Structures are given as C-alpha cells and as structure tokens.
C-alpha cells in the first residue's frame, strides 16, 4: 500500500501583500507523527491554514500534493472530504448549532454516507467515552461558552469522529494546563494509527512529554530551517530558535529541490 500522503514543494504564500511562507518543503507518510516548532510569527499557523485552504491565504508558488494529487486550487470542504483535518488554535463559536448536529452533518459530508440519528449517537457516545468527554457536550452549542481546554478537546473529538487521513493540529497544547495537555495528548494517541498521519504545530514542547514524534521540524521565517528527531526538540528546549534564524539567512539563496 502506498504510504505517501502529503508532499509540499517550495510552497510560498501571502496574505494581502505580505509574504509569509517562503519555500516550504515537507513530506508526510501514513503512520507518521510530525512536530513543527518555531517562534511566534514564523508562519506555523499560516502553513496549517494554507494546507486547509483558508481563503485569505494565496499560494504564490509551489505545490501541495495530497495522495499524489495537486490540491492547490481545491476548495476547503473538498480538502476535508479527501481526508485533511485542521484542529484550530482558536476554534470558532457557532451559537445555535449543537455539537451533535454539527458533527453528524460533517460526518455525512466527509464520509459521503447519510448518518442515521440513532447510529450516529452511538458513534459519538463511543468517541466521547474514548476521550473522557461528558456526554452532555453533545447537546451544547458548538464551542459556545467552552473553556480553552474544552475547545481543544472538542477539536480532538471532531478528529476522532471524522477519522481524517491527515490531521494538522495547530497549537493544540497552547493555553492548556498540565492535566488538559495530558488529556489532549492521550486523545491524539488514541486516534493515531498506521493509516493516518499527524502534524502537530507547537511553539513549546510541553506536549512532547506525552507524544513521541517521528520527525521534528523547525520553522523559522516561513521556511523549514532544520529537520530532525526528538533530539532536535530537546536542543530547541535548551537553546531556543535564535541560531536557526541565522541559518535561514545563510541558506536563503539555495532552493532545495523536491
């Protein structure tokens, strides 16, 4: 079976006139867990948004391939249907729409199969139990009045229900206390499998106490300055990002081929 999932090649993007991504190269295969670290403003969230197809972000160069198909021009909902999922740093509140109703609609859209109310209730209940989420959340309005931790758990719940092939988790651990971080990390572990892949974006490595990534990338100034393994994350923890800013400058003329 083909393990190849995502291939990003020389990706550049801008918002209005501001250039943010500056030539990203990245390959992600099924069964892998990638961590992208980087200082504030490096373009981490932008990368997540560009991969999902946010309308404000324009691709100015490069390609995003998903399962061998170029998805540069694909609409947001169609990307989701292909199996891409974004866990938001700041999930939107949608008053008047219950978690259950929303997720049933989303599951129907993503799976292409009508979800019966009864069967879906079971599915949701099962996933909520898996993630230790109180059943009463099903009837609450989506993210409305949720605490930061509840919103992040709800994102993981959505991921568990929608079963994407590629999940991009944007700052999933930010703003969470130790217990909440642990719960979210446990949730991610439960969903992770040989058939899917995850990219976790973070600017500190609290969550790495619980998750063991296959790859760690350092994103600075809109480019991946260095890729490595867990040791790279530990080095960043000790020394920060400063030296990678310099390296980016040193290498800024060389475009890697992919």
């Amino acid at each position, binding site marked *: 079976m083909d393990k190849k999932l995502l291939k990003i090649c020389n990706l550049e993007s801008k918002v209005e006139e501001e250039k943010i991504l500056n030539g990203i190269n990245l390959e992600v295969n099924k069964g892998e867990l990638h961590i992208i670290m980087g200082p504030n403003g490096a373009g981490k969230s932008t990368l997540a948004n560009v991969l*999902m197809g946010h*309308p404000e972000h324009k691709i100015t160069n490069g390609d995003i391939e998903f399962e061998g198909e170029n998805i540069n021009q*694909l609409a947001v*909902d169609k990307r*989701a249907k292909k199996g891409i999922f974004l866990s938001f740093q700041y999930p*939107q509140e*949608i*008053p008047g729409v219950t978690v259950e109703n929303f997720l049933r609609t989303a599951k129907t859209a993503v799976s292409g199969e009508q979800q019966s109310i009864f069967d879906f209730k079971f599915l949701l209940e099962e996933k909520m139990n898996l993630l230790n989420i109180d059943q009463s959340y099903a009837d609450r309005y989506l993210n409305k009045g949720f605490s930061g931790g509840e919103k992040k758990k709800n994102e993981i719940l959505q991921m568990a229900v929608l079963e994407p092939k590629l999940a991009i988790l944007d700052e999933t651990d930010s703003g969470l206390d130790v217990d909440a971080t642990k719960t979210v990390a446990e949730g991610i572990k439960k969903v992770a499998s040989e058939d899917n892949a995850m990219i976790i974006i973070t600017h500190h490595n609290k969550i790495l106490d619980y998750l063991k990534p296959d790859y760690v990338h350092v994103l600075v100034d809109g480019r991946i300055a260095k890729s490595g393994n867990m040791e790279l994350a530990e080095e960043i923890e000790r020394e920060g990002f400063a030296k990678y800013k310099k390296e980016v400058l040193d290498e800024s003329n060389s475009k890697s081929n992919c």
Partner: protein
Amino acid sequence: MNDKTEVNDIDRSLHEEKNVEKHRYQSAKGLTPEVIKEISREKDEPEWMLKFRLKALKIYKNKEVPTWGADISDLDMDNIITYVRPDADLQSDWDQVPEEIKDTFDALGIPEAEKESLAGVGAQYDSEVVYHNLKEEMVEQGVIYMDMENAVKQHEDLVKQHFMKLITPNDHKFSALHGAVWSGGSFVYVPAGVDVNIPLQSYFRQNAPGSGQFEHTLIILEEGANAHFIEGCSAPKYSVNNLHAGAVELFINKGAKLRYSTIENWSRNMYNLNTKRALVEEDGVIEWVSGSFGSKVSMLYPMSILKGARARAEFTGVTFAAEGQYLDTGAQVIHDAPDTTSTVNSRSIAKDGGHAYYRGLLKATKNAHGAKASVSCESLMLDNESKSDTLPIMKLQTDDIDVGHEAKVGRISEEAVFYLMSRGISEEEAKAMIVRGFVEPIASELPLEYAVELNNLINLELEGTIG
C-alpha cells in the same frame, strides 16, 4: 476559497415582468364613493358598515403618504383603484403565475387546490369542507370562528363594538384605505374560560376577491380564554395586485391568553403595509410569533398595548431580506399599567443587497410603575452588499421601570464559514447552518411544524431549493 459556490437566491425575473405588465391594465379612475358603495352592496352589508367605509374613504383622501421608513413611491397612489379592483383576466390565469412560485409550492408540499387558491387563480378554496370537523369541535365550546364578511352580518353587535376600534382609519393613510375597502379575513370569538386547544388558522382569507390584500382579522378573547391563531402559511402568496394593507385587531380580556403566529411570505412584488394591534387587559397575555420573508417592501410593527395590571406581551420575530427587498419591521409595546411585562426578541437576516431594518418602540406611561421590559434585536448580514439597521426607540415616562436592552448588528464571520467548511461542509450549507443557529433561539420557541417551515424557508432563501 477556490471553487467558490454562490448562494443563489430564487430567480425573481418573472416577477419583474409581471410588474411591467400590470401597468397596461391601469384604470385612470380614482377611488370614489361609488366604488365603495359597490363593494358594500356586493357584500350585502349593514348600513353602518357602508357609512364606516365612506368615512374612512374621506380620511384616506386627506391623509398624506408616510415619508419615513420604506420608499413606497412606486405605489401608484393616484390610481389606487387598480389595487382595489384588479383586472379579472389577470387574476384567473394559472399560466401567468411565475414558475418560481409554483416551484415553491411544490417544495413546501402545498396541496394542488390550495396552490391555485394561493396564487389567486383558483376557484374558491373550499375551506368549509376541509376544516369542517375542526370547526364543529369549537362550536361545541361556544367558539365563533368564521370569515369576516359573515361575522358582520351574523354577529353584528360584537363586530360593531370592536371593529376598527383598536386600529382606526385616523391612524395612517393605509389604515384609512383598509377601513374603506377591507374585504375578507377571519373573526374569532372565544367565550370566557374556554381553552381552544387546537390552533385556529386563517383559512377564510381566500373566500372573497381581494381578500388576501385588505383582509381584516378580529379576535376577541373573553375573560380567562385561551387560543392560538395562525395567520397565513409559509407559501408565498402571489397576487398581481401588489399592495397589501390588512389589519389585525386582538382584544385580550382579563386573564386571557392569545398566541398569534404569522409567517408572512408575500411574493416579491408586494408592498406589505400591514397593521396589527393587541389590547391586553389585566393579567392577560399576548404572544406574537412573526416571520417576515417575502414582499418587496414591508412595514410591519405589531403593537401590544398593556392596558391592565400585570398584562404581559412577548414578541418573537424573524425577518429575512434578500435581493431587492426592504423589510422594515419591529415590535411596539406600550406599558400603560402597573407591573406589566414585555419581552421582545428579534432576529433579522440580510443577504444579496437586501435591507433589514428593525424599528421598535418601547413606551411606558406614568401608570407603568413596576413594569419590566426587555428588548433584544440582533441582525446578521451575509455579505457586504446587504444592509441592516436597528432603531429601538424608548419613551419612558416613569423611572419605576426595569428595562433591559440589547442590540447587535453583525456580518457573517468568514472564519466561522471556514471552520465549518474545514469539516467537509459546503459553503452553502455552512452559511445555512450559521443562519439556522442564529435564529435557533426563536425556532426553539415555535411549535414543531412551524419550526420546520421556518427551516424550510431559510433553506429556500439560502439555496434556492430544498435539499
């Protein structure tokens, strides 16, 4: 967002043509006492009603067209007769009814006979047969429920005592016009202590020519009575005569409770200048549920007059203005007695250049000590072309009143649409979902079948089709 899908409105072009067509049939004649006499003679009315009509006509002639609110300059006021006495040929041709209207009937599952009736082209819709059983049950309880024309003759005293006492011809030009040319509508009388547990619906409105335009609804609830009246239905009522000036008068006596629900969905050529008022005595309750969808222009401000101590008014309304529509709506509440309470909850939506204007009034006289009022009006614009205003006016003549007020105007959040789309939901459905969520506090107040209709209407507005 690439591959962007457009949220299409229903095609209105056929309507536009219809408007052009109409002018060819215009009569040069104005509205004269002779025309009024003829209307009255056809209805075989008592003399006092004819006199009332003629008096109203006089007032009508002397009143100015209101200059605030909607632009109604397209209404041909000099030839108002063309709205009152339409050309019969135009009215009776099913083929002339725009396809979009027929499609909407189909989409909403309206029965064939009712479709033709709604389009103003059918033979008279036999409501008597269909709703006979319903009526019988109510008659046993002493409830009177009939069309307005018959009520004038069969319950003359009751009608004479109440008819256009709450809304008078002096109120404004269109109430005067209504007084002169009214036709059709419903009459409901519920005796003291009787609880009508089935909703009454305004099926009578199609029984007389022009009755969908100038219909009069008169409801009287005696002490401790309880009723729910549903006006209209969610199908667009198509008429080549594009002026609607109805009147609704509701008398709620001591301890009585009336729920009055409407979904107004006039075809998009209509000037809907409707007047609705409720007078609520001691411990009485009026609950308005109001949906404004159709029409080209609407000016509609249901008024609750809380005249008796502890009387209560609740208003729940949704207004949806799409392309080419200017909907100027809002609730008016007058607190004129101690410890009266009112709650106004309004949601409006504007899309494709539509304009939704919330214009509400909260008035408390010096009698209203201990009163409580809360007003919440929110509006949502789905794009940059649409407009939305809120103008909640307050006139408080007493300090001893507790007023809560909240007004919000916002645009649909692109981030929220992106969020929903990132879960595989199409742009259209994402927007519909946000809109349904926005009106949810109101939909949850509605009886189930009505909430379903509201949902269907929102889907129709947003997608041009029911999925």
